[in-house]
């Protein structure tokens, strides 16, 4: 295989990107692993992926409104608290099911591009 790196970070330190290699291995084994325990985890993954998609969409919309300057400081504060709490809860649920942030990052085809 030819070297596919066209431009790398200064000092060519690729460590920050290394976690993906494991992600690929996991994704490949997960596809064929259908025992009852992993079915539950798979379902949780699917549900949390959808929730995460909606959370990101709402957050993006909120950021646009904040940028637009149409919100009062109090409204921004309240929105921020809500999203902060959602973020915290998502992290908790992910941990509970042993899922990583990357696991909720399924390619949803055309839907994925909404983000």
């Amino acid at each position, binding site marked *: 295989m030819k070297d596919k790196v066209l431009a790398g970070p*200064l000092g060519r330190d690729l460590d920050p990107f290394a976690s993906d290699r494991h992600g690929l291995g996991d994704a*490949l084994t997960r596809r064929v692993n259908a025992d009852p325990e992993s079915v539950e985890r798979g379902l949780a993954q699917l549900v949390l992926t959808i929730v995460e998609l909606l959370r990101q969409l709402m957050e993006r919309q909120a950021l646009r409104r904040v940028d637009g300057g149409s919100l009062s400081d109090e409204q921004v504060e309240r929105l921020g608290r809500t999203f902060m709490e959602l973020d915290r809860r998502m992290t908790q649920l992910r941990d509970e099911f042993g899922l990583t942030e990357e696991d909720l990052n399924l390619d949803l085809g055309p839907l994925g591009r909404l983000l």
Partner: protein
Amino acid sequence: MIELLAITDDATPPEPPLVAVRSGGLSALCAPAEDAAVTADTLWRREAMLEELMEDRDLLPVRFGTRVADEAAAARAVAERRTELEAGLERVRGAVELSLRVHAPEPADAPPPEASSGSAYMHAKATRTQAAARLHEPLAGLARASVVRPAPELLRAAYLIEREAIEPFVARVRELQREHPALSLLCTGPWPPYSFAEDPS
């Protein structure tokens, strides 16, 4: 069973064991289907095949694992989506996909759960979005098309770049890396136009 690798409208025959199944002006480039377990190595082998094919012709990569019974079924699959496939080939003609991933050091790379207030949280998010846009926009300007993907890192994007414009694009990435020494930019390619095989709009 045969596995579909790519669609092309170029008549150059591929090297055996690959075959070209013609249907109208289009060809499905196919390989004998293997029944081995899917591993990272299988994916790289397929990638190497596609890249070799891509050197001599414009092509649309087919989704991994697309198998049909025989050559007649492959020809039917192509015929059914002729218009869409022809438009797809026009979209990627003469171009390749380059990928960009950007990691930011903590805390910009992580959601800021430790933010002291709701406003600080929103501000941190907005800063992150703007930082991603500052990298993406100048590069998107050099591309025929681009797609930003949801990702935990600061930016994950794919750009459709004319073959002759790869060098200037990579030079711009290097420039952005120098302008933002705290970030890690990784640009890879050239890849088959995976992200642009379907109409991104």
